[in-house]
């Protein structure tokens, strides 16, 4: 008769973290159907991420909105604590300042993880814009800082253009992987994809140092075109 093996286990280790910052364009041109669909999609994102047993504890989401002014609409919170909110539109597109704010958030969060002895995965920056950045020089500096961060594998950046007026040339400068263009106003499917992707990352174990997230099998992008 085999003796059962019932060792003592360490059951209170804290989960590793993956930080995800959403940069949402809420400039005036997003008014009407686009902002309504964006709000609906964000609520879906909060709901779906909050239901995944691992992602709800591991994913930390922050939201930076840019429309006239840049606002941290959601400071970092675990997905299980995330509450949907409705964003409203105003003003221009200060994307450069929004990028700086998001990078500050990510760098600050990493420092907090390290101080707390928490393991973490590579953070995500997810940029949504329907126009052109309106803060010229600030934007140029932010792009340089972001490229440096991405090259050092400090974060994974996704850029998504919304509608015909989205400046895909500028968005292309934000991400090594190239921007995607949202198909119509399919914010719902896009946020569902983002939630599923964060679930994949939360569940991921080992990936090679030469790899980036292209090797984490992300779900297919049905909501946009490259």
């Amino acid at each position: 008769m085999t003796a059962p093996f019932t060792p003592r286990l360490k059951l209170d280790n804290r989960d590793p973290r993956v930080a995800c910052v959403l940069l949402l364009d809420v400039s005036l041109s997003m008014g009407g159907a686009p902002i309504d669909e964006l709000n609906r999609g964000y609520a879906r994102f909060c709901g779906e991420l909050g239901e995944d047993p691992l992602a709800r504890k591991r994913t930390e989401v922050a939201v930076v909105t840019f429309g006239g002014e840049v606002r941290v609409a959601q400071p970092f919170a675990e997905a299980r604590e995330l509450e949907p909110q409705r964003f409203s539109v105003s003003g221009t597109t200060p994307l450069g300042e929004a990028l700086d704010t998001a990078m500050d958030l990510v760098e600050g969060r990493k420092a907090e993880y390290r101080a707390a002895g928490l393991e973490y995965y590579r953070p995500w920056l997810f940029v949504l814009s329907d126009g052109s950045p309106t803060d010229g020089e600030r934007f140029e500096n932010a792009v340089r800082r972001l490229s440096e961060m991405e090259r050092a594998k400090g974060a994974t950046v996704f850029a998504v253009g919304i509608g015909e007026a989205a400046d895909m040339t500028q968005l292309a400068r934000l991400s090594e992987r190239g921007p995607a263009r949202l198909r119509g106003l399919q914010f719902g499917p896009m946020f569902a994809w983002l939630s599923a992707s964060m679930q994949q990352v939360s569940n991921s174990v080992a990936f090679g140092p030469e790899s980036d997230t292209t090797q984490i099998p992300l779900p297919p992008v049905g909501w946009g075109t490259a």
Partner: protein
Amino acid sequence: MRVLAASVTGAAHRRLGQDCQDAWASARTPAGLVLAIADGAGSREHAAKGARTAVAAACATAGPGNDPLLAAFASARQAVLGLAPDPAPFACTLSVVVVGAAEVAAGQIGDGIVAVEQGGGARSAAVTARGEYANETVFLTSRDAMDALAVERFPASEVTGVALSTDGLRSVILDDPAAGNLYEPFFTDLWSYARRESAAADGLRAFLSDVPDGTGDDKTLVVAVPGTTGGSRPPDNPDDPR
């Protein structure tokens, strides 16, 4: 030495209908007892085959003359690189312990866990350098794999038990995953279990199947203590595990 070992497919891989991407093997060679575990990279197509190839090759090499531990790694790497012109789909980690008459040598590429019982306590052996992120590791197939190989050696007379685990258990057998410290009570209980007459690989397997690991990853545990009876037999054919 008495060897007990088991691998189980994690819940996440079972859900996706995937094979167990962990593998283990052991062999009694002229250089001593060789124990090897490998964890196939979850995102790679042929990771399970890579892992099985690596442990089989590691256990087939160790002969007298050369440094048996380094020979095991060289041969495992060669075997996996030889599977295809592009070996990336076969990526896996590899941890090997050679229990020789004079020394116990431990080596690792990647994020496995090796523990040695020494002076009544558990200490981690051959811990590899880690990157910034929790899910990054070096694989046997990586270009700089041999530079990333961590090796540690102990006088055989001081070692009273060894244990190897893939990272599927790390959240419950490490005290502080970020620092990589062992949770010593687990290893104390593991070695004391392995010394019992009624201990068997089935006991380990039942434990691995039920442990609340939080991730659903594949899990492998190999333990060796002095003694000769009741050990596990590795799969005869690494391509066709039982």
